[in-house]
């Protein structure tokens, strides 16, 4: 048990160390002082306001990670998360601003509408895969571009409110916005957004659905062996559709923290590249609901703390280089720790065998257990 925990922790730690190492190499190569860069980043990152912002910014990354993981567990690569949340965020902004209902009704409806729209956008690749045999990767890529265009058209001709350079929808009043969860009250903007609750709920739902329900089980079977699934009465095509719908529904929420918590409207400031950062969070956390949360927090922390680099005449790209490298090193880190773990297991087995004395190989082969 202790070993399992150690192994689980060793992966991320080794990853971060590796990432630090590689980033240091780059910085040194570029003629910068890595140590001072890290110091500045760390000092800024652990300020209360930064930590709060890290938590808040981790939420969309986490949602993106869960959305990607939901499809990945069915063996589908939903590269269309970007498009799904873009369309959904627009719908959410319109609903939240215009629905004449009190907050406690308006908010859940907004969330629901976003899920629905995201799921609908994901339905296109799912249907094409099932009925036309077209890989979801290609349709998702196309749907992303189409989402941008559709949103642009809707925004320009239908939902735009106001004039000037701002192309946003109508402002969402307090009756539509996400209320704060807690206000730590330790300076400027130290409120944790209510979306933290949404993220936790989504994480729990993800865990229950994927790991605990019969439905999740059938998804796993369909992903690993479609033939066995069909023979067992599991309709693979339906699982594909459900998995994409689920992934799209979660993806639909990604843009909302920004819409309901930062900009209070849908406009050009909606972050556009959350898909890959979210995927990175998912990979860092090995698609596990808790692991992904840590992944998202680490990435959000790096993102936030690298904002300060410009202050000390360091290129802010260091942050993105670090995030990119951490993504890779997370895979390498897990690889290293797994290898080490196997070695240790083998040594242990051999040592146990030696200490047990030179027994002849038992004919009734419990050998495999021994090797494990």
């Amino acid at each position: 048990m202790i070993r399992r925990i150690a192994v689980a922790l060793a992966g991320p730690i080794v990853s971060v160390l590796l990432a630090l190492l590689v980033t240091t190499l780059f910085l040194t190569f570029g003629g910068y002082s890595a140590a001072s860069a890290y110091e500045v980043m760390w000092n800024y990152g652990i300020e209360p306001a930064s930590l709060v912002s890290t938590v808040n910014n981790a939420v969309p990354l986490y949602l993106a990670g869960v959305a990607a993981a939901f499809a990945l567990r069915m063996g589908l690569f939903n590269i269309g998360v970007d498009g799904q949340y873009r369309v959904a965020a627009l719908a959410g902004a319109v609903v939240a601003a215009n629905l004449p209902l009190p907050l406690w009704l308006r908010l859940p409806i907004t969330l629901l509408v976003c899920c629905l729209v995201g799921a609908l956008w994901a339905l296109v690749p799912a249907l094409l895969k099932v009925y036309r045999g077209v890989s979801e990767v290609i349709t998702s890529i196309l749907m992303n571009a189409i989402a941008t265009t559709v949103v642009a058209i809707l925004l320009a001709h239908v939902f735009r409110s106001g004039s000037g350079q701002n192309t946003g929808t109508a402002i969402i009043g307090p009756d539509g916005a996400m209320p704060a969860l807690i206000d730590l009250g330790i300076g400027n903007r130290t409120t944790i957004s209510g979306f933290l609750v949404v993220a936790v709920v989504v994480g729990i739902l993800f865990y229950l659905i994927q790991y605990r329900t019969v439905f999740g089980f059938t998804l796993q079977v369909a992903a690993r062996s479609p033939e066995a699934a069909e023979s067992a009465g599991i309709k693979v095509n339906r699982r594909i559709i459900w998995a994409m719908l689920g992934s799209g529904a979660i993806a639909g929420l990604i843009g909302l923290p920004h819409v309901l918590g930062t900009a209070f409207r849908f406009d050009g400031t909606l972050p556009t590249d959350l898909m890959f950062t979210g995927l990175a969070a998912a990979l860092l956390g090995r698609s596990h609901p808790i692991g992904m949360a840590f992944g998202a927090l680490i990435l959000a922390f790096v993102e936030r703390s690298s904002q300060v680099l410009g202050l000390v005449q360091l290129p802010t790209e260091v942050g993105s280089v670090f995030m990119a490298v951490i993504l890779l090193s997370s895979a390498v880190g897990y690889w290293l720790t797994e290898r080490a773990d196997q070695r240790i297991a083998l040594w242990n087995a051999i040592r146990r065998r030696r200490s047990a004395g030179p027994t002849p190989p038992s004919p009734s082969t419990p050998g495999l257990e021994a090797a494990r």
Partner: protein
Amino acid sequence: MLVRLTGIVKRFGTFVANDHIDLAVRAGTVHAIVGENGAGKSTLMKILAGEEHPDEGTIEIAGAPHSFRSPRDAQQAGIGMVHQHFLLADALRVWENVVLADEPGTALRLDSAAARRRVGEIAAANGFPVDVDAVVRDLGVGGRQRVEILKVLYRDARVIILDEPTAVLVPSEAQSLFAAMRRFTEAGAAVIFISHKLDEVLDFADDITVIRAGAVVGRTTPAESSAPALAALMVKVAMPSVAPREVAPGTAVVLSAAGVTVGDAGEVPALDDVSLEVHSGEIVGVAGVEGNGQSELLMALLGRAKHSGTISMGDADITDLSTEARRERGMAYIPEDRHRDGVVLSMPLRENAALGYHARPPVKRGPWFSRAGAAGVARTIISRFDVRGGDPSTLASALSGGNQQKFIVGRELGSHPKVLIAAHPTRGVDIGAQSAVWNELTAARDEGLGTLLISADLDELLALSDRLLVFYRGRVVGELDPKTVDAQVLGEYMTGVRGQAPDAGSRPDPEGAAA
């Protein structure tokens, strides 16, 4: 001596798969190796073929010591191996699979004409009718095996290793394989041949080596031995046999098909207007050369293939029901390819025990998947059906093929089904496991289970079936009595010599019934 292995030891981790094995094979002979599942036969052969490195021991070919660093080295020494699980690229053509990694032509050009010619010549010379341009995916098992053998012959092997070649072949195909083996030995080659079918071994081998738990436990020849004696050496159990039945079959029809046709419009249907009935407590055998509609029948009965005609369980028409609904009504299924259809190799036995039974208790509790429930089922299967090598948390892939098969049989029978559709239930399973599976099938039969048994193993069909249907070109061409039919007649039905009335259709052929 063409091949001499001395003191071969192979360890996997701490487990010893081969324990000081000595083996000598003479040129011009067929040398059989027998042993139970997991005895270490395949491992030994992989060592000889250069795919595994022995931890200890020496390999001599024609008197010269060899140390193989890769399969390529072994091939150059004249050793070729046909694997138990075929190693073929499905999407490539026959000739491409054969010449792979040893192609004629220059660096910048593969001489495909020469390659195809050469492969065609070898095929013709050895009596293998294969279309060299066919895509392997479109070939049946027999065809694939011929491609595997062609790969070996193409590389001028003097030692040809066949790992359980007949497990997947119907008798006629097996016969032609044995004929080919003879031709190889007459040409001076040696054939090493692994099989769980002892009668074959006794009929065709010149020498026999018995392996148990990684060590040689006996060397003999067919003349000096017998099937029971070999079996005793191998596993210390009796030959599988079936006690004559004591309970009479029931009269209620539990499964029936009427006019079932499977096929694309405009093409010759793969399954053509088949009607059949299975009664409670009855085992109906389906004989036929592979590819004559058996797979399609399975898929149609299971609800996985589009078909016309009607299928019923008991009185209920289930034609339009999904696989899931059919299974819920008590249809159990032992698939033809256990790795593809039967288990999910990367999942533990616990999850595999739930496969197909996930929609009912004890696995399903409300919307939840009960791991405890599934583990309980797995544990029951493991203990009741003597599945060795794992507990509920073991991955299915860690089980040997025989034990995987026992697990599947246990899972399907453990659910107390009304109808069992069983395809090749003992394929590649050692005789110990085989007799266990047979016993389970007959015990379930005696409790009233109606079974449709599809098998390529005629002994199995004859031993277990109450009635025998013969499939040829997607049609039922004969209904025979397994107690009276002789292999000759059965073979003639299976190859279409007999029973091909223009529309024999579903009606049992009178002549066949008389035979």
